[in-house]
Protein backbone atom coordinates (compact mmCIF):
# COMPACT_ATOMS: atom_id res chain seq x y z
CA UNK A 1 0.00 0.00 0.00
CA UNK A 2 1.33 3.49 -0.83
CA UNK A 3 0.88 4.69 2.74
CA UNK A 4 3.16 1.98 4.07
CA UNK A 5 6.01 2.76 1.69
CA UNK A 6 7.14 6.02 3.29
CA UNK A 7 6.86 4.47 6.74
CA UNK A 8 8.97 1.50 5.66
CA UNK A 9 11.47 3.73 3.90
CA UNK A 10 11.81 5.98 6.95
CA UNK A 11 12.28 2.95 9.18
CA UNK A 12 14.99 1.55 6.92
CA UNK A 13 16.76 4.91 6.81
CA UNK A 14 16.59 5.03 10.61
CA UNK A 15 18.06 1.53 10.90
CA UNK A 16 20.80 2.42 8.44
CA UNK A 17 21.69 5.59 10.33
CA UNK A 18 21.68 3.73 13.65
CA UNK A 19 23.92 1.02 12.27
CA UNK A 20 26.31 3.57 10.79
CA UNK A 21 26.49 5.51 14.06
CA UNK A 22 27.03 2.31 16.06
CA UNK A 23 29.91 1.24 13.82
CA UNK A 24 31.40 4.74 13.94
CA UNK A 25 31.21 4.73 17.76
CA UNK A 26 32.78 1.27 18.06
CA UNK A 27 35.57 2.19 15.64
CA UNK A 28 36.20 5.48 17.43
CA UNK A 29 36.37 3.81 20.85
CA UNK A 30 38.73 1.12 19.59
CA UNK A 31 41.08 3.81 18.23
CA UNK A 32 40.98 5.62 21.59
CA UNK A 33 42.46 2.51 23.19
CA UNK A 34 45.02 1.42 20.58
CA UNK A 35 48.34 3.11 19.77
CA UNK A 36 49.63 5.29 18.25
CA UNK A 37 48.35 8.01 20.58
CA UNK A 38 48.61 11.74 19.98
CA UNK A 39 49.06 13.38 23.42
CA UNK A 40 49.81 16.77 21.84
CA UNK A 41 46.47 16.74 20.03
CA UNK A 42 44.61 15.47 23.10
CA UNK A 43 46.07 18.35 25.12
CA UNK A 44 45.11 20.87 22.43
CA UNK A 45 41.54 19.58 22.44
CA UNK A 46 41.43 19.64 26.24
CA UNK A 47 42.36 23.31 26.17
CA UNK A 48 39.79 23.96 23.43
CA UNK A 49 36.96 22.13 25.18
CA UNK A 50 37.83 22.82 28.81
CA UNK A 51 39.60 26.12 29.09
CA UNK A 52 37.83 28.02 26.32
CA UNK A 53 34.38 26.78 27.40
CA UNK A 54 34.92 27.98 30.95
CA UNK A 55 33.53 31.54 30.48
CA UNK A 56 30.30 30.45 28.81
CA UNK A 57 29.74 27.54 31.22
CA UNK A 58 30.61 29.72 34.22
CA UNK A 59 28.20 32.48 33.18
CA UNK A 60 25.44 29.96 32.56
CA UNK A 61 26.04 28.39 35.97
CA UNK A 62 26.12 31.61 37.98
CA UNK A 63 22.92 33.00 36.45
CA UNK A 64 21.18 29.66 36.79
CA UNK A 65 22.09 29.50 40.48
CA UNK A 66 20.88 33.09 40.98
CA UNK A 67 17.56 32.50 39.20
CA UNK A 68 17.07 29.24 41.05
CA UNK A 69 17.44 30.97 44.43
CA UNK A 70 15.10 33.78 43.38
CA UNK A 71 12.39 31.52 41.96
CA UNK A 72 12.61 29.09 44.88
CA UNK A 73 12.17 31.98 47.28
CA UNK A 74 9.01 33.27 45.57
CA UNK A 75 7.55 29.76 45.69
CA UNK A 76 8.73 28.64 49.13
CA UNK A 77 7.87 31.92 50.86
CA UNK A 78 4.19 31.05 50.48
CA UNK A 79 4.72 28.02 52.72
CA UNK A 80 7.30 29.64 55.00
CA UNK A 81 9.86 27.12 53.68
CA UNK A 82 12.57 29.62 52.70
CA UNK A 83 15.16 27.69 54.69
CA UNK A 84 15.03 24.94 52.03
CA UNK A 85 16.48 27.26 49.38
CA UNK A 86 20.17 26.28 49.92
CA UNK A 87 19.17 22.62 49.66
CA UNK A 88 17.15 23.15 46.49
CA UNK A 89 19.90 25.15 44.86
CA UNK A 90 22.72 22.73 45.60
CA UNK A 91 20.78 19.59 44.66
CA UNK A 92 19.36 21.09 41.47
CA UNK A 93 22.72 22.41 40.37
CA UNK A 94 24.83 19.34 41.13
CA UNK A 95 22.37 16.69 40.01
CA UNK A 96 20.71 18.25 36.97
CA UNK A 97 21.30 21.83 35.93
CA UNK A 98 25.09 21.85 36.15
CA UNK A 99 25.70 18.87 33.85
CA UNK A 100 22.74 19.44 31.53
CA UNK A 101 23.29 23.15 30.95
CA UNK A 102 27.07 22.73 30.66
CA UNK A 103 26.48 19.88 28.20
CA UNK A 104 24.10 21.96 26.11
CA UNK A 105 26.41 24.98 26.10
CA UNK A 106 29.39 22.84 25.11
CA UNK A 107 27.26 21.18 22.41
CA UNK A 108 26.57 24.62 20.97
CA UNK A 109 30.14 25.82 21.23
CA UNK A 110 32.36 22.78 20.79
CA UNK A 111 30.12 20.28 18.99
CA UNK A 112 29.29 22.80 16.28
CA UNK A 113 32.91 23.82 15.84
CA UNK A 114 34.08 20.20 15.61
CA UNK A 115 31.45 19.34 13.00
CA UNK A 116 32.36 22.44 10.98
CA UNK A 117 36.11 21.81 11.21
CA UNK A 118 36.03 18.09 10.38
CA UNK A 119 33.29 18.67 7.80
CA UNK A 120 35.41 21.27 6.03
CA UNK A 121 38.38 18.92 6.15
CA UNK A 122 36.20 16.23 4.59
CA UNK A 123 34.87 18.34 1.70
CA UNK A 124 38.29 19.85 0.96
CA UNK A 125 39.88 16.37 0.82
CA UNK A 126 42.02 16.97 3.92
CA UNK A 127 40.64 13.76 5.45
CA UNK A 128 41.65 11.86 2.29
CA UNK A 129 45.05 13.54 2.54
CA UNK A 130 45.45 12.15 6.07
CA UNK A 131 44.73 8.67 4.73
CA UNK A 132 47.24 8.99 1.91
CA UNK A 133 49.85 10.13 4.43
CA UNK A 134 49.29 6.83 6.27
CA UNK A 135 47.61 8.57 9.21
CA UNK A 136 44.32 7.16 10.38
CA UNK A 137 41.74 9.99 10.65
CA UNK A 138 40.02 8.16 13.50
CA UNK A 139 43.22 8.25 15.52
CA UNK A 140 44.32 11.73 14.48
CA UNK A 141 41.02 13.62 14.40
CA UNK A 142 38.41 11.74 16.37
CA UNK A 143 40.08 9.89 19.26
CA UNK A 144 41.76 13.04 20.72
CA UNK A 145 38.43 14.88 20.67
CA UNK A 146 36.54 12.03 22.33
CA UNK A 147 39.16 11.64 25.05
CA UNK A 148 39.18 15.39 25.68
CA UNK A 149 35.36 15.59 25.78
CA UNK A 150 35.11 12.65 28.14
CA UNK A 151 37.65 14.08 30.58
CA UNK A 152 37.05 17.83 30.40
CA UNK A 153 33.27 17.95 30.80
CA UNK A 154 33.36 16.53 34.38
CA UNK A 155 35.98 19.15 35.31
CA UNK A 156 33.90 21.89 33.72
CA UNK A 157 30.79 20.67 35.53
CA UNK A 158 32.59 20.53 38.87
CA UNK A 159 33.55 24.17 38.40
CA UNK A 160 30.02 24.99 37.19
CA UNK A 161 28.60 23.35 40.34
CA UNK A 162 30.71 25.58 42.57
CA UNK A 163 29.90 28.72 40.56
CA UNK A 164 26.17 27.85 40.43
CA UNK A 165 25.97 27.35 44.18
CA UNK A 166 27.88 30.60 44.60
CA UNK A 167 25.26 32.33 42.39
CA UNK A 168 22.49 31.10 44.69
CA UNK A 169 24.53 32.19 47.70
CA UNK A 170 24.99 35.72 46.32
CA UNK A 171 21.27 36.25 45.68
CA UNK A 172 20.20 34.61 48.94
CA UNK A 173 22.60 36.58 51.13
CA UNK A 174 22.60 39.91 49.30
CA UNK A 175 18.99 40.15 48.20
CA UNK A 176 16.92 37.72 50.22
CA UNK A 177 18.49 38.38 53.61
CA UNK A 178 19.93 34.94 54.35
CA UNK A 179 22.73 34.61 56.88
CA UNK A 180 25.89 33.69 54.89
CA UNK A 181 27.20 31.19 57.43
CA UNK A 182 23.84 29.47 57.82
CA UNK A 183 23.39 29.33 54.05
CA UNK A 184 26.76 27.66 53.52
CA UNK A 185 26.23 25.30 56.47
CA UNK A 186 22.83 24.23 55.12
CA UNK A 187 24.33 23.71 51.69
CA UNK A 188 27.22 21.64 53.01
CA UNK A 189 25.07 19.58 55.40
CA UNK A 190 22.50 18.70 52.77
CA UNK A 191 24.71 17.74 49.87
CA UNK A 192 25.46 14.02 49.42
CA UNK A 193 28.48 12.61 47.55
CA UNK A 194 26.05 10.83 45.25
CA UNK A 195 24.61 14.17 44.09
CA UNK A 196 27.99 15.34 42.85
CA UNK A 197 29.10 11.94 41.53
CA UNK A 198 25.91 11.45 39.51
CA UNK A 199 26.42 14.91 37.99
CA UNK A 200 30.02 14.12 37.07
CA UNK A 201 29.05 10.77 35.52
CA UNK A 202 26.43 12.62 33.49
CA UNK A 203 29.04 15.17 32.46
CA UNK A 204 31.43 12.47 31.22
CA UNK A 205 28.63 10.86 29.19
CA UNK A 206 27.51 14.23 27.82
CA UNK A 207 31.09 15.16 26.93
CA UNK A 208 31.42 11.91 25.01
CA UNK A 209 28.08 12.43 23.25
CA UNK A 210 28.81 16.03 22.25
CA UNK A 211 32.20 15.20 20.76
CA UNK A 212 30.91 12.00 19.16
CA UNK A 213 28.08 13.87 17.43
CA UNK A 214 30.41 16.66 16.30
CA UNK A 215 32.91 14.16 14.87
CA UNK A 216 30.27 11.84 13.35
CA UNK A 217 28.36 14.53 11.50
CA UNK A 218 31.53 16.32 10.42
CA UNK A 219 33.20 13.13 9.22
CA UNK A 220 30.16 12.14 7.17
CA UNK A 221 29.41 15.57 5.73
CA UNK A 222 29.13 15.83 1.96
CA UNK A 223 28.58 18.43 -0.70
CA UNK A 224 30.49 21.60 0.10
CA UNK A 225 29.46 24.52 2.27
CA UNK A 226 25.82 23.47 2.49
CA UNK A 227 26.83 19.98 3.62
CA UNK A 228 29.07 21.43 6.32
CA UNK A 229 26.23 23.70 7.47
CA UNK A 230 23.86 20.77 7.69
CA UNK A 231 26.45 18.72 9.58
CA UNK A 232 26.91 21.54 12.09
CA UNK A 233 23.18 21.86 12.69
CA UNK A 234 22.74 18.10 12.99
CA UNK A 235 25.64 17.85 15.43
CA UNK A 236 24.13 20.40 17.81
CA UNK A 237 20.54 19.15 17.52
CA UNK A 238 21.41 15.47 17.92
CA UNK A 239 23.81 16.15 20.80
CA UNK A 240 21.16 18.24 22.59
CA UNK A 241 18.49 15.57 22.20
CA UNK A 242 20.86 12.83 23.32
CA UNK A 243 21.92 14.88 26.36
CA UNK A 244 18.31 15.35 27.46
CA UNK A 245 17.35 11.72 26.89
CA UNK A 246 20.50 10.23 28.46
CA UNK A 247 19.97 12.60 31.40
CA UNK A 248 16.73 10.82 32.18
CA UNK A 249 18.25 7.34 31.95
CA UNK A 250 21.26 8.19 34.10
CA UNK A 251 18.99 9.88 36.66
CA UNK A 252 16.87 6.75 36.79
CA UNK A 253 20.01 4.65 37.16
CA UNK A 254 21.22 6.66 40.17
CA UNK A 255 18.06 7.73 41.94
CA UNK A 256 15.17 5.42 41.05
CA UNK A 257 14.19 3.39 44.08
Amino acid at each position, binding site marked *: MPILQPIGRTFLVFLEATGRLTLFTALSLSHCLRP*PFYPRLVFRQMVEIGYYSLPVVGLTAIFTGMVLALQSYTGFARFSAESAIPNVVVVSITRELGPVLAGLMVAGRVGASMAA*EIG*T*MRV*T*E*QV*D*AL*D*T*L*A*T*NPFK*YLIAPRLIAGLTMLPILVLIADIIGVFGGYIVSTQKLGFNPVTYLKNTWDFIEPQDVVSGLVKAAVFGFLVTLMGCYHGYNSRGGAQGVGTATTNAVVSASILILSFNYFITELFFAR
Partner: protein
Amino acid sequence: MNERPAATLSPGQDAAAARSGTPKIAIRGLSKAFGPKVVLDGIDLDIQAGESMLVIGGSGSGKSVLLKCILGLLHPDAGSIKVDGEEVVGLYGAELDRVRRKFGMLFQNAALFDSLPVWENVAFGLIQGQRMARGAAREIALQKLGAVGLGEDVGELMPAELSGGMRKRVGLARAIATEPEIIFFDEPTTGLDPIMGDVIDRLIVKCVKELGATALSITHDMASARRISDRVAMLYKGKIIWTGRTAEIDRSGNPYVDQFIHGREEGPIQMQVRDL
Protein backbone atom coordinates in the same frame (compact mmCIF):
# COMPACT_ATOMS: atom_id res chain seq x y z
CA MET B 1 52.14 0.77 -31.98
CA ASN B 2 50.35 0.86 -28.65
CA GLU B 3 47.02 2.21 -29.79
CA ARG B 4 43.79 0.33 -29.70
CA PRO B 5 41.71 0.32 -32.86
CA ALA B 6 39.79 3.50 -33.42
CA ALA B 7 36.48 3.97 -31.61
CA THR B 8 36.45 0.54 -30.05
CA LEU B 9 35.29 0.41 -26.44
CA SER B 10 37.55 -2.52 -25.63
CA PRO B 11 39.55 -2.57 -22.38
CA GLY B 12 42.82 -0.73 -22.57
CA GLN B 13 45.19 -3.53 -21.79
CA ASP B 14 48.37 -2.07 -23.06
CA ALA B 15 50.97 -3.90 -25.08
CA ALA B 16 53.78 -2.02 -23.38
CA ALA B 17 52.80 -3.54 -20.06
CA ALA B 18 53.12 -7.02 -21.36
CA ARG B 19 56.63 -6.61 -22.68
CA SER B 20 58.27 -5.98 -19.32
CA GLY B 21 58.10 -7.65 -15.91
CA THR B 22 55.70 -7.02 -13.03
CA PRO B 23 54.03 -3.65 -13.47
CA LYS B 24 54.30 -1.18 -10.59
CA ILE B 25 50.52 -0.94 -10.59
CA ALA B 26 48.37 -3.58 -12.29
CA ILE B 27 44.62 -3.05 -12.47
CA ARG B 28 42.31 -5.78 -13.71
CA GLY B 29 38.54 -5.74 -14.14
CA LEU B 30 38.10 -2.79 -11.77
CA SER B 31 34.46 -1.80 -11.35
CA LYS B 32 32.81 0.76 -9.15
CA ALA B 33 29.24 2.02 -9.12
CA PHE B 34 27.48 4.57 -6.94
CA GLY B 35 23.89 3.34 -6.78
CA PRO B 36 22.71 2.87 -10.38
CA LYS B 37 25.53 5.01 -11.81
CA VAL B 38 28.40 2.85 -13.07
CA VAL B 39 31.59 4.91 -12.86
CA LEU B 40 34.25 2.30 -13.57
CA ASP B 41 33.27 -0.67 -15.67
CA GLY B 42 35.91 -3.38 -15.75
CA ILE B 43 39.06 -1.30 -16.15
CA ASP B 44 42.37 -2.96 -17.07
CA LEU B 45 45.49 -0.81 -16.84
CA ASP B 46 49.18 -1.42 -16.23
CA ILE B 47 51.63 1.24 -15.08
CA GLN B 48 55.28 0.31 -15.35
CA ALA B 49 57.88 1.33 -12.77
CA GLY B 50 59.37 4.72 -13.53
CA GLU B 51 56.88 5.75 -16.18
CA SER B 52 54.54 8.70 -16.03
CA MET B 53 51.02 7.63 -16.93
CA LEU B 54 48.22 10.10 -17.50
CA VAL B 55 44.51 9.36 -17.48
CA ILE B 56 42.34 11.76 -19.42
CA GLY B 57 38.58 11.88 -19.67
CA GLY B 58 35.65 14.20 -19.30
CA SER B 59 34.28 15.50 -16.01
CA GLY B 60 32.56 12.70 -14.11
CA SER B 61 34.24 9.99 -16.18
CA GLY B 62 35.67 8.34 -13.06
CA LYS B 63 39.28 9.52 -13.10
CA SER B 64 39.31 10.59 -9.45
CA VAL B 65 37.41 7.43 -8.46
CA LEU B 66 40.17 5.39 -10.12
CA LEU B 67 42.85 7.14 -8.04
CA LYS B 68 40.83 6.77 -4.85
CA CYS B 69 40.32 3.05 -5.48
CA ILE B 70 44.06 2.53 -5.91
CA LEU B 71 44.74 4.43 -2.68
CA GLY B 72 42.12 2.43 -0.79
CA LEU B 73 39.99 5.53 -0.13
CA LEU B 74 37.12 3.87 -2.02
CA HIS B 75 36.37 0.16 -2.11
CA PRO B 76 35.83 -1.18 -5.62
CA ASP B 77 32.82 -3.41 -6.30
CA ALA B 78 34.92 -5.86 -8.29
CA GLY B 79 38.38 -6.31 -9.73
CA SER B 80 41.98 -6.40 -8.64
CA ILE B 81 44.61 -3.73 -7.96
CA LYS B 82 48.16 -4.92 -7.47
CA VAL B 83 50.99 -2.67 -6.35
CA ASP B 84 54.40 -4.31 -6.83
CA GLY B 85 52.50 -7.55 -7.33
CA GLU B 86 50.68 -7.26 -3.99
CA GLU B 87 46.90 -7.21 -4.00
CA VAL B 88 45.64 -4.07 -2.24
CA VAL B 89 41.89 -4.55 -2.63
CA GLY B 90 40.66 -5.80 0.74
CA LEU B 91 43.63 -4.52 2.72
CA TYR B 92 42.88 -2.37 5.74
CA GLY B 93 44.49 -0.97 8.89
CA ALA B 94 48.24 -1.34 9.26
CA GLU B 95 48.57 -3.41 6.08
CA LEU B 96 46.91 -0.72 4.00
CA ASP B 97 49.01 1.99 5.70
CA ARG B 98 52.16 0.04 4.79
CA VAL B 99 51.17 0.07 1.11
CA ARG B 100 50.11 3.73 1.30
CA ARG B 101 53.59 4.68 2.45
CA LYS B 102 54.70 3.94 -1.11
CA PHE B 103 52.43 6.71 -2.36
CA GLY B 104 52.47 10.48 -2.41
CA MET B 105 49.59 12.52 -3.73
CA LEU B 106 49.08 16.06 -4.94
CA PHE B 107 45.40 16.85 -4.51
CA GLN B 108 43.41 19.04 -6.87
CA ASN B 109 43.15 21.89 -4.36
CA ALA B 110 46.29 20.80 -2.55
CA ALA B 111 44.23 19.71 0.54
CA LEU B 112 46.68 21.37 2.91
CA PHE B 113 45.85 21.09 6.61
CA ASP B 114 44.48 24.51 7.59
CA SER B 115 45.48 24.20 11.22
CA LEU B 116 49.17 23.51 10.59
CA PRO B 117 51.90 25.84 9.28
CA VAL B 118 53.32 25.11 5.84
CA TRP B 119 56.45 23.33 7.05
CA GLU B 120 54.38 21.00 9.25
CA ASN B 121 52.12 20.23 6.31
CA VAL B 122 55.14 19.22 4.26
CA ALA B 123 56.65 17.25 7.15
CA PHE B 124 53.36 15.59 8.09
CA GLY B 125 54.08 12.23 6.44
CA LEU B 126 57.52 12.14 8.06
CA ILE B 127 56.33 13.04 11.56
CA GLN B 128 53.09 11.07 11.68
CA GLY B 129 53.66 8.36 9.10
CA GLN B 130 57.35 7.63 9.72
CA ARG B 131 57.58 8.84 13.34
CA MET B 132 60.55 11.08 12.54
CA ALA B 133 61.65 13.65 15.15
CA ARG B 134 60.09 17.07 14.49
CA GLY B 135 63.45 18.85 14.16
CA ALA B 136 64.76 16.47 11.53
CA ALA B 137 61.42 16.45 9.72
CA ARG B 138 61.44 20.26 9.66
CA GLU B 139 64.88 20.28 8.02
CA ILE B 140 63.67 17.94 5.28
CA ALA B 141 60.44 19.94 4.86
CA LEU B 142 62.39 23.17 4.31
CA GLN B 143 64.66 21.38 1.86
CA LYS B 144 61.64 20.09 -0.09
CA LEU B 145 60.09 23.56 -0.07
CA GLY B 146 63.35 24.79 -1.59
CA ALA B 147 63.11 22.08 -4.24
CA VAL B 148 59.75 23.51 -5.36
CA GLY B 149 61.05 27.07 -5.32
CA LEU B 150 59.75 28.27 -1.96
CA GLY B 151 61.90 29.92 0.67
CA GLU B 152 62.23 29.05 4.35
CA ASP B 153 60.05 32.03 5.28
CA VAL B 154 57.08 30.34 3.55
CA GLY B 155 57.46 27.43 5.95
CA GLU B 156 56.16 29.54 8.82
CA LEU B 157 53.06 30.77 6.97
CA MET B 158 49.63 29.22 7.36
CA PRO B 159 47.98 27.67 4.26
CA ALA B 160 45.31 30.40 4.23
CA GLU B 161 48.07 32.96 3.53
CA LEU B 162 49.22 31.26 0.30
CA SER B 163 48.22 31.94 -3.31
CA GLY B 164 46.86 29.15 -5.53
CA GLY B 165 50.23 28.48 -7.15
CA MET B 166 52.02 28.43 -3.80
CA ARG B 167 49.45 26.01 -2.40
CA LYS B 168 50.09 23.65 -5.32
CA ARG B 169 53.82 23.89 -4.76
CA VAL B 170 53.44 23.18 -1.05
CA GLY B 171 51.15 20.26 -1.97
CA LEU B 172 53.86 18.99 -4.31
CA ALA B 173 56.51 19.38 -1.61
CA ARG B 174 54.29 17.37 0.76
CA ALA B 175 53.76 14.69 -1.90
CA ILE B 176 57.52 14.20 -2.41
CA ALA B 177 58.62 14.74 1.22
CA THR B 178 58.59 11.04 2.07
CA GLU B 179 60.31 10.23 -1.24
CA PRO B 180 57.51 7.89 -2.33
CA GLU B 181 57.84 5.27 -5.04
CA ILE B 182 54.56 6.30 -6.67
CA ILE B 183 53.12 9.81 -6.93
CA PHE B 184 49.56 10.68 -7.95
CA PHE B 185 48.69 14.09 -9.37
CA ASP B 186 45.01 15.01 -9.37
CA GLU B 187 44.41 17.88 -11.82
CA PRO B 188 47.76 19.52 -10.96
CA THR B 189 47.21 22.68 -13.02
CA THR B 190 43.47 23.25 -12.51
CA GLY B 191 42.74 26.79 -11.37
CA LEU B 192 46.20 28.13 -12.22
CA ASP B 193 47.16 30.66 -14.86
CA PRO B 194 49.01 29.15 -17.87
CA ILE B 195 52.42 30.35 -16.73
CA MET B 196 52.03 28.99 -13.23
CA GLY B 197 50.62 25.80 -14.79
CA ASP B 198 53.85 25.45 -16.75
CA VAL B 199 55.91 26.10 -13.62
CA ILE B 200 54.03 23.37 -11.73
CA ASP B 201 54.37 20.95 -14.64
CA ARG B 202 58.11 21.47 -14.84
CA LEU B 203 58.41 20.97 -11.09
CA ILE B 204 56.39 17.77 -11.35
CA VAL B 205 58.63 16.42 -14.11
CA LYS B 206 61.77 17.43 -12.20
CA CYS B 207 60.62 15.90 -8.91
CA VAL B 208 59.43 12.67 -10.50
CA LYS B 209 62.68 12.29 -12.44
CA GLU B 210 64.86 13.03 -9.39
CA LEU B 211 63.00 10.52 -7.26
CA GLY B 212 62.80 7.95 -10.03
CA ALA B 213 59.15 7.61 -9.06
CA THR B 214 56.23 6.17 -10.96
CA ALA B 215 53.61 8.82 -11.65
CA LEU B 216 49.91 8.60 -12.33
CA SER B 217 48.16 11.86 -13.18
CA ILE B 218 44.67 12.87 -14.16
CA THR B 219 43.89 16.10 -15.94
CA HIS B 220 41.70 17.86 -18.48
CA ASP B 221 44.52 20.20 -19.44
CA MET B 222 46.06 18.82 -22.65
CA ALA B 223 48.99 21.25 -22.56
CA SER B 224 49.85 19.93 -19.12
CA ALA B 225 49.22 16.35 -20.26
CA ARG B 226 51.81 16.64 -23.02
CA ARG B 227 54.38 18.08 -20.63
CA ILE B 228 54.16 15.64 -17.75
CA SER B 229 53.33 12.22 -19.19
CA ASP B 230 55.01 9.39 -21.09
CA ARG B 231 51.80 7.50 -21.80
CA VAL B 232 48.13 8.41 -21.88
CA ALA B 233 45.00 6.38 -21.22
CA MET B 234 41.57 7.73 -22.03
CA LEU B 235 38.61 6.91 -19.82
CA TYR B 236 35.14 7.07 -21.31
CA LYS B 237 31.91 5.66 -19.92
CA GLY B 238 33.79 3.73 -17.27
CA LYS B 239 36.18 2.01 -19.68
CA ILE B 240 39.71 2.64 -20.94
CA ILE B 241 39.10 3.19 -24.65
CA TRP B 242 42.63 4.03 -25.72
CA THR B 243 46.15 3.91 -24.39
CA GLY B 244 49.31 5.00 -26.12
CA ARG B 245 52.43 7.10 -25.98
CA THR B 246 51.83 10.79 -25.34
CA ALA B 247 53.95 11.75 -28.34
CA GLU B 248 51.54 9.83 -30.56
CA ILE B 249 48.27 11.06 -29.14
CA ASP B 250 47.68 13.34 -32.14
CA ARG B 251 47.83 10.27 -34.39
CA SER B 252 45.66 8.05 -32.23
CA GLY B 253 43.15 7.41 -34.98
CA ASN B 254 40.53 7.25 -32.23
CA PRO B 255 37.68 9.75 -32.78
CA TYR B 256 36.95 9.93 -29.04
CA VAL B 257 40.55 10.87 -28.29
CA ASP B 258 40.67 13.29 -31.23
CA GLN B 259 37.52 15.05 -30.08
CA PHE B 260 38.76 15.27 -26.50
CA ILE B 261 42.28 16.56 -27.18
CA HIS B 262 40.99 19.18 -29.61
CA GLY B 263 38.12 20.17 -27.34
CA ARG B 264 35.47 19.94 -30.07
CA GLU B 265 31.76 19.83 -29.38
CA GLU B 266 31.10 17.71 -32.47
CA GLY B 267 32.07 14.09 -32.28
CA PRO B 268 31.15 10.77 -30.75
CA ILE B 269 31.26 12.17 -27.18
CA GLN B 270 27.92 13.82 -26.61
CA MET B 271 27.62 16.27 -23.72
CA GLN B 272 24.24 16.47 -22.04
CA VAL B 273 23.47 20.18 -22.45
CA ARG B 274 19.92 21.46 -22.24
CA ASP B 275 18.86 24.11 -24.79
CA LEU B 276 18.42 27.61 -23.46
